């Protein structure tokens, strides 16, 4: 769930945070930002929200860099241990779609150490019905 200060901020559009469904361009009347958002919706996102699992007990925290094959490709927005999944998880904004990073060796810079990480789908967990 995107949180203001982490995944949300004054420079993030709802589409980038995965909240595009709450923007209704066809509602009657105007709303502030309609034109700007319509332009951003059609031009495509500049950042891509991705889920990560961390191959360590260390937690990837807000602001830590995400690297693909050693080159910075994004920043962690939030992270925490996941008792359900058994590994720490994190969300990050990447500068390219997650799908384009398939096959790259991903690491998160945790206080000077390059810790292996893996892309995962969001939501991290769906309860089986």
């Amino acid at each position, binding site marked *: 769930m995107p949180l203001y200060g982490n995944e949300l901020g004054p420079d993030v559009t709802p589409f980038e945070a995965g909240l595009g469904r709450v923007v209704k361009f066809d509602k009657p009347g105007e709303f502030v930002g309609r034109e700007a958002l319509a332009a951003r919706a059609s031009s495509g996102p500049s950042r891509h929200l991705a889920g990560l699992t961390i191959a*360590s*007990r*260390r*937690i990837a925290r807000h602001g830590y860099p995400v690297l693909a094959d050693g080159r910075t490709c994004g920043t962690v927005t939030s992270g*925490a*241990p996941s008792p359900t999944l058994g590994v*720490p998880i994190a969300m990050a904004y990447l500068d390219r779609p997650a799908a384009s990073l398939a096959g790259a060796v991903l690491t998160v810079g945790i*206080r000077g150490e390059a810790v292996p990480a893996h892309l995962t789908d969001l939501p991290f967990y769906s309860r089986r019905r």
Partner: protein
Amino acid sequence: MSVPAELHYTPEHEWVSLEGTSASVGITDYAAQQLGDVVYVSLPALGATVTAGEPCGEVESVKSVSDLYSPVDGEVIEVNAELEDDPSLVNAEPYTAGWMFRVRVVQDGNGDAALPTDLLSAAEYDELTKSAG
């Protein structure tokens, strides 16, 4: 919150147990409670030189990361490998199973372990934590 009487303490919330010329080190019950659930401990390497008052590792909990300071001067002779698999030992048993590392303490002219003179007694440490609130 327990403060065993036979140990020495630092203002950074480490405890020291002197055994001849070696010292065992960990963090106090107070520190473990303040940190919350410990998820990862980064310990100094075997053979590393540690300096009293200097950071030599990290203790990471869910909510924050804290530096781990060495209370003494010396060389690391043993680290607690159990903490790699079960960092929660630091919360459950901070003075026993949650010990962190052992140091061969630098000796003074008489061949005794040269402990820093500003280590706190149990009573002094207890006072420190109470006044911190």
